[in-house]
């Protein structure tokens, strides 16, 4: 019965071709460090899912942001769980992205023909860090406020254009409602949109080129 349905759908959608191409790829003999990319992808999807749920209650306004998060943590059923996964998942994702990069680097897997996979990976690293940075402000508590004050002030040290970048990030000379809303917008729309497009490119290249083997001593 199930097989009949699967056959019916497959005839029309060609799902098995996608399945075979994406999941039944030939891979060289590898080790557990080759699962770090999948782990990162899993975390990205988890972050997106829990993040979408968080927007059901969170309000990006200086007077309400902290109160709304308090509400999520203390009054909403499983709010602590959803936010907890989002909070720890963010930290974990930065770690897996980094380890994934280190593995690629030390195995020399960024070489021909995988340069573009590496370059999109660099941008994915930056976008992941950007997600973490913008998300950190959203609780609008003391730690968030001062971390963002310091974080945006760092850009000011760039010669000539530093002050301009600082004000562009903050939406003014000081942290304000504008800062909170633009960080929120970046956190839930701009960065994730760019992130998932680049994940698509990154994974297309992984499927297209396959993964490289562990280099042997004489390579």
């Amino acid at each position, binding site marked *: 019965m199930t097989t009949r349905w699967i056959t019916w759908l497959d005839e029309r959608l060609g799902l098995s071709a996608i399945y075979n191409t994406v999941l039944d790829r030939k891979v060289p003999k590898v080790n557990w460090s080759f699962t770090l990319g999948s782990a990162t992808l899993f975390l990205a999807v988890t972050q997106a*899912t829990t993040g979408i749920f968080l927007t059901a209650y969170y309000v990006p306004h200086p007077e*309400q942001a902290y109160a709304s998060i308090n509400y999520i943590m203390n009054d*909403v*059923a*499983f709010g602590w769980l*959803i936010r907890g996964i989002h909070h720890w998942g963010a930290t974990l994702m930065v770690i897996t992205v980094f380890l994934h990069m280190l593995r690629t680097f030390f195995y020399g897997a960024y070489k021909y023909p995988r340069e573009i996979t590496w370059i999109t990976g660099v941008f994915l690293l930056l976008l992941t860090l950007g997600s973490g940075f913008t998300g950190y402000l959203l609780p609008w508590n003391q730690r968030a406020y001062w971390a963002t004050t310091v974080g945006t002030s760092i850009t000011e040290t760039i010669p000539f254009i530093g002050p301009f970048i600082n004000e562009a990030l903050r939406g003014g000379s000081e942290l304000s409602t504008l800062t909170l809303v633009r960080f929120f917008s970046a956190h839930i729309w701009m960065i994730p949109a760019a992130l998932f497009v680049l994940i698509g490119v990154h994974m297309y290249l992984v499927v297209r080129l396959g993964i490289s083997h562990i280099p042997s001593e004489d390579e």
Partner: protein
Amino acid sequence: MGQDSHEHGMDRRSFVAGVVAFLGSIIAAVIGLPAIGYLLSPGLRKSGSVLTDEWVPLGLVDELIVGEPKLISFSRTQRVGWETTAQSYGIYVLRKPGNTYDVFSNVCTHLSCRVSWKEELSEYICPCHDGHFGIDGSIISGPQPRPLDTFEYRVEEGTLMIKLAEV
């Protein structure tokens, strides 16, 4: 070893597929099931309202004209989520001969728009779907399923009070 597992009808490949599907379902359930409760949560609990069968004074009965419905509004604040919001109420009071009263909620019984008294028609009209109610709250025409809702009332030292049921 490999031979063994084949005899039992499961190879390494389908074992791994089974484990992945099993663990995947658990992970999906761990996020998915609480997420349902998470989204439904505020709808399933009391709004944190302060109203517990409170008697609300509407005004002096001497100020009411017999046979003429009068709209009296008041509001009550309640805690919704992390905010205190004002909930406003509109009550139509009709003083009838013999010191009896009709006390109607202005919430239309159809889909909760607000009705208003039209002097020239001597009817309550709901503008949303053209519901017409008589001066006694009865249905004249329109889609509404029942007459206007009434409140329990009492008169205390010349003041009309209504009982606001817990919401």
